């Protein structure tokens, strides 16, 4: 097995608040291989966005990250300035809100070439050529004239394409996509997903795709990490997660996906009762136990990690329910 492109060990993100320290990410570990798509799934507030920002070293000032290991292609990203040098060049990121992620005051072209000129250099004309090329690659016609436009002149779908083109200007090896299609309507969403898959094949890009939408995961993921309350509750290949989900939380999430043909019209989709526990202070035992139909007294004690091969889950239960 070759060394992973990105290796994350025991990553933690803590935020100091007035009422105590909020542990947004509680010691998670995963690897991303070159060219693969890893989906990080979970509800709002489970720490998936904090994880992505921590990887890019873009956390807000109140948040502190720590890890026993965080390497990108062998480089230790916990050392000062390493992540700073990698981001925008070898690892790029796109965000949920294409409407606000571009600066309203500058043209598309200006925003696309500035990072390229900073990281790669060369003449401005060459950078503009590359930007036009990238726009065509993400399926934007009359690319030249688009470069002179401002973000407010483009639709949400086009802006997200611009964001993708901009992120790929420097040929990064890793793209972190934080809910990139959540703000788009369904047809545009499908187009963007297909575009990402095509680009991945063409460029050998590794993608970390962060989403709350498990239905979407089934269409793109090679491997899946399921997060709950700041921790990984289950990890495995897409096939393992969808065909043999082991953790009750994963099972509950899968029940929430409507399935054409199977789910009857008018039938209630699954919901998970209860709310996510507070992330302030320590969490003993399984964080999901208050919402879990299968919980027992022993769930309040530290939970073992079980599994085999690439499939792992954190639950007292040996086999899937």
């Amino acid at each position: 097995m070759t060394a992973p492109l990105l290796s994350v060990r025991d990553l933690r993100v803590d935020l100091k608040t007035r009422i105590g320290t909020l542990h947004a990410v509680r010691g998670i570990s995963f690897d991303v291989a070159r060219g693969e798509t890893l989906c990080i799934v979970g509800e709002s507030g489970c720490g998936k966005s904090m994880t992505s920002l921590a990887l890019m070293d873009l956390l807000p000032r109140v948040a502190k990250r720590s890890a026993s290991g965080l390497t990108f292609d062998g480089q230790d990203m916990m050392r000062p300035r390493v992540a700073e040098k990698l981001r925008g060049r070898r690892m790029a990121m796109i965000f949920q809100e294409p409407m606000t992620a571009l600066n309203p005051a500058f043209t598309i072209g200006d925003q696309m070439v500035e990072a390229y000129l900073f990281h790669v250099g060369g003449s401005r004309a060459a950078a503009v050529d590359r930007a036009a090329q990238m726009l065509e690659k993400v399926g934007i016609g009359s690319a030249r004239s688009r470069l002179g436009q401002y973000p407010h002149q483009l639709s949400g779908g086009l802006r997200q394409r611009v964001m993708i083109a901009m992120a790929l200007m420097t040929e990064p090896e890793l793209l972190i996509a934080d809910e990139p299609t959540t703000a788009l309507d369904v047809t545009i969403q499908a187009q963007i997903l297909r575009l990402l898959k095509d680009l991945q094949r063409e460029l050998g890009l590794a993608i970390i795709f962060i989403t709350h939408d498990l239905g979407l995961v089934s269409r793109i993921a090679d491997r899946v990490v399921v997060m709950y309350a700041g921790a990984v509750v289950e990890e495995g290949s897409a096939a393992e997660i969808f065909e043999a989900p082991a953790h009750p939380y994963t099972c509950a999430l899968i029940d929430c996906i409507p399935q054409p043909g199977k789910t009857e019209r008018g039938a209630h989709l699954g919901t998970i009762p209860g709310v996510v526990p507070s992330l302030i202070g320590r969490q003993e035992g399984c964080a999901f136990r208050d919402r879990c139909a299968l919980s027992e007294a022993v769930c309040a004690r530290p939970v073992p990690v079980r599994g085999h091969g690439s499939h792992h889950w954190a639950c007292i239960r040996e086999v899937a329910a």
Partner: protein
Amino acid sequence: MLIYILKRLGLALIVALTVSVIAFALLRASGDIATALAGEGATPESIAVIRQTYGLDRPIPVQYLSWLWDVARGDFGQSYFFRTDVAGLIFGKIGNTLILGAASLAIALALSIPLGVLAAIYSGSIIDRAVTMFSLMGQALPSFFLALALIMVFAINLRMFPASGADSWRNFVLPALTLGYYITPPFMRLVRAGMIDALNTDYVRTARAKGLPARRVVFKHALRNALVPVVGLVAVQLGLLMGGSVVVESIFALDGLGYLAYQSISYRDFPVLQGVVLLLSLAYVVLTLLSDIINAWLDPRLRAA
């Protein structure tokens, strides 16, 4: 962009005409002009003669149009008190006021933009609090107090700058410092608030994710957007500075427009007052137009409006 400018220009013209009607009405509302001109104890006959000579017996709209025509050619009438041309009087003093206003504004911007950016980047820290204190003092100190303190230190003790007059650029240093510091706080607050907002936007996060150096993120991506409301405030403050620097102009014996306005009010010199009001209002109109155009350049979304 051109269409936007033309639209704004049309709007500015309408406002300017409205202002001229008000300025005209101001003089008419101050009482019978012919009686005032004739002086105390004048006979009804001489008042009638004056009324005819000055065309005051014509219908009001006709008087307005002929007055507007005069004003358009730079003829603002005669001062009752100084017995000279109002236009000459005003344009003799407006230079001093403009220099003082521009210098104060330059000082205020040179202080408030870097300080506001600094306070925003380190918001909540000791730096932020120190900057806020410094700008609060500018607002709390009466300008006459700061003016006198500056005169004490720099004019009397150190003899670096003169305390009064308007003969060279050195005369403008102390009044410009006084006024500049006085108007710094609103600018500082606006820059700080705008920068805090801008630094928290998604596009600044995008800029950081692109791996741009912090300097570029702050001064290109954030500051450009934070400056839009500042430009509007510049227009308002410059307008205020032109008419409202009476106190500072009096203390430093800097013979400017503010001082003239103050005199014309105390001497009931209505033609002068009318000229000053008209000119200041037109200045506001021009400044607003300019700030609209600059903002359209800063923020392309405004050009469509």
